[in-house]
């Protein structure tokens, strides 16, 4: 029975399902593919020099996969709270609902894992070709299909999907059926205690790692800085709603000044729903923080060692972190679309009280811009902290090398994909028939 319900749930909620499915497929592909490349490179002695870089980029891929899949899945489960409440009200126990959610996640996970594993092989071949082209591995990387990376990818894919679903399920069934039906998106507490404690602990751990960067051996300084960035990202995304509410209030006030009607709508929705805003801001933060740390750590290390890269080898670092960035950018689009899609009713209502189509589009844009801006600020702060400590390790000064065009490009890509996701997801509500459904 549970499986039948789960299967039907997946079928009737295609959009959320597609988003989660895509996230898991890409995650498994990234992890499996990077694994295949690392294993392949390990067989060649001349590739020893770049093993460190390869492993680091694989770890970054793994980290963003876990982060993004967990985020999308919990968003997906929480968005269906009305369904869960309805099932509770016809007599399902919280345990059964929780099992249903897990079963649904299992359907997604199994299908997506298979697809991801299949895609991992061409992805690894592509990576190897790129490495050969850019001169990172002039002799090429032999990509052989071995079971190891697949097992890692499968375990990571399944475990993360199921774990994220269980955590989200606990939250979803933790509230009574009536409470949910009364209002689908009431904010209970901005920062529940477990979240605050976890966030605080992660921030403290990140601070310790930051402090360690200049203390450890020079060779491990860059990986430690990257680790600090990851841990700080976890902390910031746990404590994010508070920060986003503050920034939403401030930036929203500016928007409301520039564009009274639409800006006011954007601000009020950010201030009233900072957690929803954070789920869209957090992939932006992750992209900016990780990509900047990775790219500019290579640049800082090169500068300290007096290396100047020319020709195709300039593209080595961007290429290695590129697929992880593509992945997070997709998830920016994904989560903006998901957070906006649930607002169709609200948008129609705004139209019935006389909001012009242009005004609505501007309200969506303002909100997305503010969210992206908040994510960018958080991510930049985290990356700057890690890079400054890395600079201290390399040169003794709290300075680091960076490339403004690369940074601007990154922010631009995040902003554009956020805007695209937001506008596309609200298109039907903004232009379609205006009848209450």
């Amino acid at each position, binding site marked *: 029975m549970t499986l039948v319900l789960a299967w039907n749930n997946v079928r009737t909620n295609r959009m959320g399902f597609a988003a989660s499915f895509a996230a898991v497929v890409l995650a498994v592909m990234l992890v499996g593919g990077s694994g295949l490349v690392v294993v392949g490179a390990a067989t060649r002695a001349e590739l020893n020099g770049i093993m460190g870089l390869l492993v680091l980029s694989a770890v970054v891929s793994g980290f963003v996969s876990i982060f993004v899949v967990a985020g999308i899945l919990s968003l997906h489960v929480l968005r269906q709270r009305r369904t869960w409440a309805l099932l509770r009200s016809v007599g399902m126990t919280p345990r059964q609902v929780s099992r249903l959610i897990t079963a649904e996640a299992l359907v997604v996970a199994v299908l997506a894992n298979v697809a991801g594993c299949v895609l991992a092989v061409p992805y690894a071949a592509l990576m190897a070709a790129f490495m050969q082209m850019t001169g990172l591995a002039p002799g090429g990387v032999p990509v052989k299909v071995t079971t190891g990376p697949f097992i890692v990818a499968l375990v990571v894919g399944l475990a993360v999907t199921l774990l994220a679903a269980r955590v989200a399920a606990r939250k979803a069934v933790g509230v009574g059926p009536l409470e949910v039906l009364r*209002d689908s*998106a009431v904010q209970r507490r901005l920062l529940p205690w477990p979240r605050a404690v976890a966030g605080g602990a992660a921030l403290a751990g990140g601070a310790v790692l930051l402090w360690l960067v200049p203390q450890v051996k020079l060779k491990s300084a860059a990986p430690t800085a990257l680790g600090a960035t990851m841990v700080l990202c976890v902390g910031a995304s746990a404590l994010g709603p508070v920060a986003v509410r503050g920034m939403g209030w401030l930036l929203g006030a500016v928007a409301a000044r520039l564009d009274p009607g639409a800006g006011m709508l954007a601000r*009020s*929705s950010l201030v*009233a729903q900072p957690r929803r805003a954070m789920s869209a801001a957090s992939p932006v933060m992750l992209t900016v923080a990780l990509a900047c740390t990775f790219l500019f750590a290579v640049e800082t290390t090169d500068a300290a060692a007096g290396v100047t890269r020319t020709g195709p080898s300039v593209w080595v670092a961007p290429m290695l972190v590129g697929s992880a960035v593509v992945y997070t950018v997709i998830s920016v689009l994904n989560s903006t679309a998901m957070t906006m899609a649930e607002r169709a009713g609200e948008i129609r*209502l705004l139209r*019935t*009280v*006389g909001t*012009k189509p242009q005004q609505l589009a501007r309200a969506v844009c303002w909100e997305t811009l503010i969210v992206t801006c908040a994510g960018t600020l958080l991510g930049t702060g985290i990356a700057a902290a890690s890079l400054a400590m890395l600079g201290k390790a390399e040169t003794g000064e709290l300075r680091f090398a960076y490339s403004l065009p690369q940074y601007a490009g990154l922010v631009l890509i995040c902003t554009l994909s956020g805007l695209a996701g937001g506008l596309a997801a609200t298109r039907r509500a903004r232009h379609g028939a205006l009848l209450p459904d």
Partner: protein
Amino acid sequence: MVDHAVLLEEVTRTYGKGATEVAALRRVSIGFPRGSFTAVMGPSGSGKSTLLQCASGLDRPDSGAVRIAGQDITRFGENELAVLRRDQVGVIFQAFNLVPSLTAWQNVILPSSLARRRPDPSRVRELLHRVGLAGREGHRPAQLSGGQQQRVAIARALLGRPEVLFADEPTGALDRRTGHEVLALLREAVDAFGQTVVMVTHDPEAAAQADRVLLLTDGRIVEVLDRPSADQIGMRLGGRR
């Protein structure tokens, strides 16, 4: 010559195409005089909600004209319709009338804010007081009961002094007592402010508050009752079932 706030001329609205085609309104012509309270009744599927949606500009008829303050709104583009909704038409649905992230006060002044106007705060306060929400200005919809939410929606509709106020089953989600209070507010809007109100309902007691009741069946107005009692309405409805 009666002064009509809203005038429908030969309005037809059809849903679907081919074999599944359903005519929701068939050449309906009716005027709603300024300062009157009209209830629209009929069995489900009779076209009463479609009538309200076409008359308020939420939906476009396939043919015919809808005149509000003399202008044919079926020719309006989206922008003109938006301005019409801000200034000349108020709509209240059965539920979900308020933007969840805005407070009661902000919801009331929303149409003015969208038009970049600053309504007189003392008038907003007076309206909220009048609908029984003094002291709740800062509450969000989630902190208000269903009846209170409907009152905020009524206050919002009244603030702009619209040509006409449409209500689609405004008491459908409320208990009897709260429903009566909301109806009394609509009645008061007609009597005290000279507001024009058009309300769709299936409840004879609610309809008995109106000056006039239209009975719809199969997309046509089959009967018009002037100042009927709830019993009379019930009998007419019963006779048609």
